[in-house]
C-alpha cells in the first residue's frame, strides 16, 4: 500500500522530470535552483526554515531564499507592479490573501497537490473548514495578543484588554502595530462590548468614532512597531511596558530566550496564515511543489513543535508534543488551548477583506488628528 505522502513525492518527481526542469539546465550542469519565499522573519521564519525549507531542499535540491514581508496587500501589489516578479511563494494573512485573490494577484492552486493525512483522511476533511481555497491554502492559526514586561509591574499584574488602556493602574508605553488591525477590536472590547458584536458595531460610523476616542486616551503613550520581532524587543528593553504582538514571538522570547514577558490571553485576536503564489512568477510549478510539501501533516507538526502556532489540519494538531529543543509542552501555549478561548476574538476575515480601504483611511485620519 502506497504511503499517503507518496502523492506529493509523485508531484515532485513529475516536476523533476518535466521538460521545464530539463530546459532550465540546457548545459546539463546542476545549477542550484532557488525558490524565493516572502515571509515574516525572526523566530517564525526560523521555525519555517527548520520545518519546511531545509527538509524541502534536502528532498528536492531546490534552495530556499527568503525576503522580508510584514503583511498587507500593498507590498505584494507594488512588487508585482514593478514587473520583474521575484517572489515565488508568499505567506499571507488569510484576509489579505482573500483580497489578493479577488484582485487577481495570485496564481491558482490545485487542491490535488495537498497530501492526505497519514491515516488516509482526505485533505478536505483533515483541514479546518475553508482552509483550502482556489488560490491560497491556510496553514496556521496564530494570535495577536497583549503581553507585558513582568518586571514593569511588580505588584498587581494586568490581565485584561481593559488594563491595556488603563495608564493609571499600569503606567508605561504601549507598543502597537502600525496598521489598522486589531486596534479597534481592542478599543471596543475594553468598553465591554461583547466579542460577538464587535464587527457589527465597527461597521457603523459611531463604532469607529468610539474606537478612535478610546485610542485617543492612550495616544501619547503609543510606540509603533512594524515587524513581528519588534514587540518582544521593545518589552525586553523596557521601552514599552505592554505590547501587542504575535503569540509565537512572545513564546519564543519567554521560553527560548528567558525574557520576563507574560501574555494576556483576554481578547486575543485569532487569525490565520496562508500559503499563496504571486501571479507571474516563473517558478509557479516549483512553488506548488513547495506548498504541497509544506502542508504535509509531519511538516506542519514539526513547525508547531518549534513555535506556538497551531496547524490547521487535525492530523498535525494531534502530533503536537514537546518543543523540539526545550522540551516544553507546546499545547498550553497554542492560541487554541481551551483556557485561552474564553474571550478570544475570531478575526472576521470577510469583514477585513471588504473593509481594507475604509480601515486604512480611518487609521490615517486618526494618525493625522
Amino acid at each position, binding site marked *: 500500500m502506497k504511503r499517503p505522502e507518496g502523492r506529493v513525492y509523485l508531484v515532485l518527481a513529475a516536476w523533476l522530470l518535466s521538460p521545464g526542469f530539463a530546459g532550465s539546465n540546457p548545459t546539463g550542469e546542476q545549477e542550484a535552483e532557488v525558490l524565493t519565499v516572502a515571509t515574516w522573519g525572526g523566530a517564525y521564519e526560523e521555525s519555517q526554515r527548520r520545518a519546511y525549507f531545509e527538509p524541502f531542499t534536502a528532498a528536492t535540491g531546490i534552495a530556499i531564499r527568503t525576503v522580508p514581508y510584514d503583511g498587507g496587500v500593498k507590498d505584494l501589489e507594488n512588487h508585482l507592479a514593478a514587473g520583474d516578479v521575484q517572489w515565488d511563494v508568499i505567506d499571507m494573512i488569510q484576509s489579505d490573501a482573500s483580497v489578493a485573490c479577488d484582485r487577481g494577484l495570485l496564481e491558482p492552486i490545485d487542491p490535488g497537490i495537498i497530501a492526505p493525512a497519514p491515516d488516509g483522511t482526505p485533505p478536505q476533511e483533515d483541514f479546518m473548514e475553508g482552509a483550502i481555497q482556489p488560490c491560497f491554502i491556510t496553514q496556521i492559526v496564530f494570535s495577536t495578543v497583549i503581553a507585558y514586561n513582568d518586571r514593569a509591574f511588580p505588584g498587581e499584574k494586568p490581565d485584561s484588554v481593559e488594563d491595556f488602556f488603563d495608564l493609571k493602574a499600569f503606567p508605561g508605553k504601549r507598543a502597537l502595530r502600525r496598521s489598522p488591525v486589531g486596534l479597534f477590536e481592542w478599543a471596543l472590547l475594553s468598553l465591554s462590548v461583547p466579542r460577538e458584536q464587535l464587527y457589527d458595531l465597527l461597521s457603523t460610523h459611531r463604532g469607529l468614532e468610539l474606537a478612535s476616542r478610546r485610542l485617543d486616551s492612550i495616544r501619547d503613550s503609543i510606540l509603533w512597531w512594524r515587524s513581528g520581532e519588534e514587540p518582544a524587543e521593545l518589552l525586553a528593553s523596557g521601552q514599552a511596558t505592554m505590547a501587542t504582538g504575535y503569540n509565537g514571538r512572545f513564546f519564543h522570547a519567554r521560553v527560548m530566550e528567558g525574557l520576563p514577558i507574560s501574555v494576556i490571553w483576554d481578547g486575543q485576536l485569532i487569525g490565520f496564515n496562508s500559503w499563496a503564489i504571486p501571479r507571474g512568477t516563473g517558478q509557479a510549478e516549483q512553488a506548488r511543489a513547495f506548498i504541497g510539501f509544506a502542508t504535509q501533516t509531519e511538516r506542519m507538526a514539526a513547525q508547531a513543535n518549534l513555535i506556538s502556532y497551531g496547524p490547521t489540519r487535525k492530523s498535525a494538531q494531534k502530533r503536537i508534543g514537546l518543543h523540539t529543543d526545550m522540551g516544553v509542552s507546546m499545547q498550553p501555549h497554542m492560541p487554541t488551548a481551551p483556557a485561552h478561548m474564553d474571550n478570544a476574538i475570531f478575526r472576521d476575515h470577510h469583514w477585513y477583506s471588504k473593509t481594507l480601504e*475604509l480601515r486604512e483611511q480611518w487609521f490615517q485620519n486618526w494618525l493625522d488628528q
Partner: protein
Amino acid sequence: MAYQIGVVTVMAIAVGTAGSLAAIGFVEAVHYLNDRLLISPYARVQADNQPGLVAAATLLVPALGGLLVGLVVQFLIRERRGLAPPDAILAAQTPGPTPGLGSGLASTLAALISLGSGASVGQYGPLVYLGALFGNLAGRLRLNLRHQRSIAIACGVAAAISTAFNAPIAGLVFAHEVILRHYSLRAFAPVTVAAATGYIIANVIFDRPVLFLVDFTRVEHSYEFLLFALEGVLCAGLAWLFVVLLKYSTHAGRRCIALPWARPAVAGLVVGIVALWLPEILGIGQETLRFATIRDAFGIGELALIVTAKLALTALCVGFGFVGGVFSPALLIGILFGALYGMVLPHLVPVPYSGLVVYAICGMMALASSVIGAPLTTILIVFELTRNYDLTIAAMVSVVFANVISYRAIGRSLFDLDLRDRGFDLSLGRDKAILGSRLIRDYLSTIYTTARGSHTVEAVRKRLVDEHRAEAMIVDEKGVLRGIVRLQGILDSPEGTPIDQLAIRAYTLFDEHTSVWQSMELLRGFLGEAVPLVSEDGKLLGVVPEEAVIRAYLEIVHELREEENEAA
C-alpha cells in the same frame, strides 16, 4: 389520566419545537435579507466604496419593501391586515374561528419583508403569532384534551419567546401573562415543557448574540431607587405618547392615502429619506441598542434626536400598515431614553450615580412593559439575560411604576387596546371579556306563547292560563315582534278588546348580537319572565328566560374558574 399527561407532553414538545425552529428561521431570514439588501451596517460598510449604491438602497429598499408588503396584505391575507399577538390572545381566549393557515403564513411573509427591508417595526410580534399559528394547528388535532387550543397556542408562543430571547422563564411567563391570562397547573406544565424545548433548541443551533449583555456590578446608592421609580413614570408618559402617535398615524394613513396597499410604501419612503441622514432608525437597530449601554457613544442631543425619530417612524410604519411588532422598537426607544435620562440626571441632581447601564436597562424594560402589558415578562428577561440581581431589582422598580401609570393612562397594553376596538374588552379582566364575547342567542328558548294583535283579551288570557305562562309575545303575520303582554296587565281588561291595544311597547329586548355580559346589564330592573330575542329585521326568534341568563353567567364563570384551577 396517563393518556392525558402523555399526549399533552408530546404536544408541548412538538409545538415547542415547531415554534422554536420557526423563530430561528424567521430571525435568520431577516438577517439574511438585511445583509443582502444593504440594511445592516455590516453589509453597508462593505459597500463603503460605492456610496451611490448604499444611498440608493437606503432610499429604495424600504419603499419597495413597503409596496410588496402592501400587496401581500391586500391580496393574500383575508383579514387585510398583519396578524399579531392580539389575534393569538383572541384565539386562546375564545372558541370562535381564527385566521386561517394561509393568512397566517402570508402575514409572516409580510412581516419578513417588512423587517428585511428595514422598516421600523419589531420582530417579536410576528414571532409570537408564528408560535400561535403552530399552536392553533395542534389545537385542531382530535386529541380529546380539555382547553386544547388555548394550551397549544400558549405552548407555541412560549417557545417562540424562549428561543428569541434565549430566556425560557420569560417565555413561560409571557404565555401566561399576555396570552392565557391565568395560571392553572394544567396549562403551566405543558407551557413549561414548550419553553424549555425552545431554550434547548436555541442553545443547540441558534448562534445569535443575546439581546443585551452588560457589565454591571451593583446599585451603589439606595436613593437611586427613587430615580428608577421616576424613570418608570417618565417611561409611562413616553408609552402614552407612543400610543397617541400610533393612533394618529393610523388615522392619517387612512385619511390621506385612499389605496390601503400603497400606505406602507409611503411610510417606507419616509424611512429611507430619514435614514439617509440618520441610519440608526433602519430596522431593528441592534447596534444602536448596544451603543446605548456604552458611555460616550452618544451625545445628549444626538440621543434625544434618535429617540424622537425612532418613536415617530415606528408609529408611522405600524400605522401605515407595515407588518411587525412594537416590542423591539419599544425596547430600543426605551434603552435610548434610559441612556438619555442617565446622562441628563447628573446635570440636574449632582449626586453620585451607579453609571449609565442600569438607567438604560430600566428605561428599556419600563417602556416595553407598558406597551405590551407584560411587567413580569420584562423583569424576567432582565434577570435571565444578565443574571444580575441588582439590575433586575432596579428594572423591577421602573417597570412597576411605569405599569401603574400606563395602566390608568392607556390601559393594560397596546394589544388590549386593539382587542377592545374589536369588541373584546379585557380591561375588567377575563370574566367580562369572555362574557362579552359569548352570545346570549345560544341560550335561546323557542317555547313561548305568541298572539296576534287582533286576538282578543279573552283568547290570550285563556291561552296563557293553559300554558302556565304570564307573558305572551305579540307578532304580526310576518313574525315581527309588535309588543308583549303580561297576564297581570290584562286580568281586568274587557274580554273583547283586541290585545294590540293593551300591549306593552317599551320592554327589554335582545338581538342576535347581544352578549351574555350585555344581557346581564339589560336585565337590571327587569320584572318579567323572559326577554324576547329578535333578528335584525325585527322578527321574533325566541325568548331568553331570566333563568337562562343566570345559567349562562354561571356556566361561563364556572368554566373559567375550572380552567384556571385545573390540575395537570
